[in-house]
């Protein structure tokens, strides 16, 4: 029987490719066979161009043959969330609004992956315009959790997480505005990192809430996640929030066994499922046993994070999504007799329910008479939350919490209650509000469902987070877990 290439890490695949015992074509053919076997069940991908994948693989093999390999990602497939532009591939954001859009250009991260020799491998399902926590808001298809096909994979990068867990691809890209990389990573038993705001360029990422959005790596191990981050992170003048060459040095990792770990008071209490709390407490005990100093920290404004986020994110979304007016690209209604009709009908036909809900909410919190009470207060609350996180992170190196309070829920279970769904993000949102890096690492199970823990660090402390994750991962068997599908 052929080696089960779909189970291997990107690092191991890279070693085999470098040693000449594997070609990128053979790897891609194995993954295409895996796609045929399981994608219909899982629904992770919305588009995959086989001929293009194999052409990229052949080009990679030719480069390697000629001694022109481009590094550790040479020949390795990376699947991409459908809100990140790849020239010549669909860019739908899982929305009817962009159903027929083919990107005329590469995002910065796509350019980086090409320069690293990676194979740009297909488009991954997501909540429409990245708005959601279950991938149920996709207008294209449903995605299911590989660990239990009756349950959601999380979201909005649900396709990115499910593809990894199902062995469809070794690496994927997600985007994270309030937890959209880390929450699905936790639900699917994989690793996801939201980098420091400014570390990875968003040029070519379809904008949702620009003061919060980040692109980040997802993988089945911490090592692979780090490999992908290294390829993605570089200066780019086309995203004015992206750090320049002189500003982007990461803090050295140091010795993970010397880390000072802060556990926010009350974060393992109310609303956290007992099995989730138990798995996270076991992780805390592990770090303590390794020699890490664990202490309790206070984050008094934690309760403000969800309302602050939903004011800021929807306000920015209502503005960003104003560009979908039926004029330049995207859906234009057939009923477009006047400019006003064209805009209103195109938007009404093109956007799904959650996107409309958030546009309406964002419009309200910015509207005359209410902006002071909602938007401006949220900006002040955001300053307070950021200050509290930075103060806590002056005392400890990382903050450790669950990634999500509860394991993956059943498809449809929370579909009628948007507020319940918004509370899924309670532990992940503050890192976006404060611009901090955050990592989700698998740490156990609740029944048969994966549970992750969440590390947040000071700006540019990615190496510390990843070192802490590697220390845990090396001692536990959660990396590259295989699901029977």
């Amino acid at each position, binding site marked *: 029987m052929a080696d089960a290439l779909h189970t291997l890490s990107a690092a191991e695949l890279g070693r085999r490719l470098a040693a000449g015992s594997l070609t990128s074509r053979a790897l891609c053919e194995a993954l295409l066979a895996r796609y045929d076997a399981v994608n219909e069940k899982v629904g992770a991908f919305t588009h995959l161009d086989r001929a293009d994948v194999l052409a990229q693989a052949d080009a990679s093999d030719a480069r390697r043959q000629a001694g022109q390999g481009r590094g550790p990602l040479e020949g390795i497939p990376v699947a991409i969330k459908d809100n990140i532009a790849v020239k010549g591939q669909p860019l739908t954001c899982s929305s009817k609004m962009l159903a027929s859009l083919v990107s005329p250009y590469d995002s910065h991260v796509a350019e980086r992956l090409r320069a690293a020799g990676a194979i740009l491998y297909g488009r991954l399902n997501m909540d429409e315009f990245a708005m959601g926590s279950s991938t149920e808001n996709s207008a294209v298809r449903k995605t299911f959790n590989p660990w239990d096909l009756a349950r959601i994979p999380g979201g909005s990068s649900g396709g990115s997480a499910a593809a990894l867990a199902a062995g469809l691809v070794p690496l994927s890209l997600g985007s994270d505005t309030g937890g959209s990389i880390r929450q699905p990573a936790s639900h699917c038993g994989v690793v996801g990192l939201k980098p420091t705001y400014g570390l990875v360029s968003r040029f070519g990422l379809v904008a949702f809430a620009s003061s919060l959005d980040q692109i980040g790596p997802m993988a089945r191990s911490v090592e692979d996640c780090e490999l992908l981050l290294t390829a993605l992170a570089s200066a780019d003048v086309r995203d004015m929030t992206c750090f*320049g060459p002189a500003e982007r040095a990461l803090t050295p990792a140091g010795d993970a066994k010397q880390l000072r770990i802060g556990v926010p008071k009350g974060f393992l209490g109310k609303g956290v499922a007992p099995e989730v709390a138990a798995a996270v407490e076991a992780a805390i005990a592990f770090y303590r046993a390794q020699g890490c100093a664990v202490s309790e920290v206070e984050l008094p404004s934690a309760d403000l994070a969800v309302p602050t986020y939903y004011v800021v994110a929807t306000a920015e979304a209502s503005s960003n999504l104003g560009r979908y007016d039926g004029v330049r690209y*995207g859906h234009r209604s057939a009923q477009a007799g006047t400019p006003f009709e064209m805009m209103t009908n195109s938007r009404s036909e093109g956007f799904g329910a959650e996107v409309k809900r958030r546009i309406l909410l964002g419009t309200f919190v910015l509207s005359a008479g209410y902006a002071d009470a909602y938007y401006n207060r949220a900006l*002040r609350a955001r*300053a307070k939350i950021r200050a509290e996180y930075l103060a806590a992170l002056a005392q400890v190196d990382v903050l450790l919490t669950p990634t999500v309070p509860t394991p993956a829920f059943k498809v449809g279970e929370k579909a009628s209650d948007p507020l319940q769904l918004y509370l899924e993000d309670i532990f992940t949102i503050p890192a976006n509000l404060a611009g901090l890096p955050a990592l989700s690492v698998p740490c156990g199970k609740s029944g048969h469902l994966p549970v992750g823990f969440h590390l947040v660090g000071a700006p540019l402390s990615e190496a510390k987070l990843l070192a802490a994750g590697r220390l845990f991962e090396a001692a536990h068997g959660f990396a590259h877990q295989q699901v029977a599908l």
Partner: protein
Amino acid sequence: MAEGFDIDHLAKLARLNLTDAEKALYSTQLSSILGHFRALAEADLPSSVDDARVVREAALRSDEPGPSLGAEAVTRIAPAARDGQISVPRVVDDES
């Protein structure tokens, strides 16, 4: 319903047509969500906002022409185009 919450006005500002059923649903849901935001109104907050994302002048590029997608690539993805230009419904009436 939250004070001053006018779904018709909001839909118009957001350029969305809503059916009566959608208006009823969104009104209920938005009121519930805004109720959850009350914590913001009651919190003791600093007077200043988070200015971490205020754009630094150093981050701005000089305003000079550079390579761009070009008309062909742009009109190819447009809903309607003619003679290298994007076409839209008439904006100005003959009489006006």
